[in-house]
């Protein structure tokens, strides 16, 4: 990267460390923090959306819709994440390529042949000739979808419970004012349920932050992958030989995660306080008394 770093083996002390920490592989490591933050930034709203849909479906008065919502919540919550990440992602990937093959391939041969999955090269997603960036981006997209489905199920359960926790009297009053079912849902139920959902959603957010290393299962190089790869002892075959430094890298990650979860905790606490205003809960009551 820097001209002074052209011959790392002749360097010593601080300049060695400087060159080491600015090697292309380390730059990849620094970028991977952004990958993780980006994943969280996309996955959290996506899971919330999935959860909201799931909970609304589970509460539906139409029986098949309600079953669909409940089966989604029950199935995904019951399957270990790691199985989901190994099995579901491969199935999703092959499903996408199969559908594409129906459009772009001639012949339409059944792609699952024994242990192998074969579609014509034009049906590959991304195409073999696409650069590494697209392969990473595709893995990232699969990760977002999988995270959204998995965490969406837990979110759905939290929101379902929160919707049921809104006092019946509130809804009844709205009905007495002549609001339709949809109006009660939009104007009364949804604004009030957040305060009940927040503790559960806060927990899920914390778990989601810590679940990001699952990214590596999908071939996306995340911070834990880099910490392991960079920290492992390096022989003279490498430009910067060193011993087993994984401890230092993992300590760095620990600090990152602790700082990040701490900031999240503060944010969640603030949000809880704000949402409790004027609510018929103990938290809302405490705020009212403090103000009075």
């Amino acid at each position: 990267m820097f001209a002074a770093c052209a011959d790392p083996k002749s360097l010593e002390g601080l300049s060695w460390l400087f060159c080491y920490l600015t090697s292309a592989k380390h730059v990849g490591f620094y970028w991977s923090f952004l990958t993780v933050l980006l994943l969280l930034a996309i996955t959290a709203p996506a899971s919330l959306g999935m959860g909201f849909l799931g909970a609304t479906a589970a509460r539906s008065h139409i029986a098949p819709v309600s079953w669909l919502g409940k089966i989604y919540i029950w199935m995904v919550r019951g399957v270990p994440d790691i199985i989901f990440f190994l099995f579901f992602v491969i199935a999703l990937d092959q499903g996408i390529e199969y559908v594409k093959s129906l459009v772009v391939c001639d012949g339409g041969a059944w792609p699952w042949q024994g242990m192998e999955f074969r579609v014509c090269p034009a049906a590959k997603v991304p195409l073999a000739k696409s650069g590494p960036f697209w392969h990473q981006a595709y893995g990232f997209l699969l990760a977002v979808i999988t995270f959204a489905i998995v965490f969406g199920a837990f979110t759905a359960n939290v929101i379902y419970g929160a919707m049921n926790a809104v006092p019946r009297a509130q809804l009844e009053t709205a009905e007495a004012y002549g609001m339709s079912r949809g109006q009660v849902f939009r104007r009364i139920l949804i604004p009030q349920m957040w305060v009940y959902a927040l503790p559960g959603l806060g927990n899920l957010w914390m778990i989601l932050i810590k679940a990001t290393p699952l990214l590596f299962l999908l071939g996306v190089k995340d911070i834990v992958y880099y910490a392991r790869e960079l920290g492992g002892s390096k022989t003279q075959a490498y430009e910067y030989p060193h011993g087993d430094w994984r401890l230092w890298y993992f300590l760095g990650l620990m600090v990152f995660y602790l700082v990040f979860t701490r900031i999240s905790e503060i944010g969640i606490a603030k949000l809880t306080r704000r949402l409790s205003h004027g609510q018929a809960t103990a938290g809302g009551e405490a705020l009212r008394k403090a103000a009075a």
Partner: protein
Amino acid sequence: MKKLLIATALVAASGAAQAQDVVRLGTEGAYPPYNFINDAGQVAGFERELGDELCKRAELTCEWTTNDWDSIIPNLQSGNYDVIIAGMSITPEREEVVSFSQGYLPPSASAYLALSADADLTSGPVAAQTGTIQASFVAENGMQLVEYATPEETVAAVKNGEAVAVLADKDYLAPMAAESGGSLVLLEREEIIGGGIGLAFRKSDDELRAKFDAAIKSMKCDGTLDAMIVKPEYFGPESNVWGDAGKEGC
């Protein structure tokens, strides 16, 4: 992000017809000198140079990608890449699920790395990487096996006393012993296991395999393969080479 991806997928799909196909090479990237990720973040090592040369000779455009050793065969079958070039020994068990090219490295010794030269291999577990010929060997020969997902972890297990020794390819372990300042030593006992190292292909990919087979053969015939093997940064002058046996039928 999603819109961007969909847009690109469409662009990529429309441009697929005229483009020359790219062969994707899958490796582990954690097993120097065979293959590793260098400090520039690129795949490097013997297999990088070999793979690039083979692609040149077979007139193919190749792209490198890395994959965990654990799932390296399933991802080949699933079509995420077309060739495994990852120091994979040719064994009958693997031949049931993939098809191998002819060997590009002759069978070489596996060695034990331990904290002292008189380590007793029966006194505790012996480490090996999951799914390797060395792991099978340890399990089948009355030693207690402890498996790790990466080569790095097998060596770390010996350093911190979780295992009495690690069994792996000697070419991987020798630099570790040499650079450890005496804290790690190779045992005298060595094992010859495996039938050489080859490229692995999907069973249905005979056409591609034939191209690489021809390229490997041509490198054996003109001696460039042997010259590459003995380079000091790879396996060194004392390593096994193909020699005249490789030139049969040229």
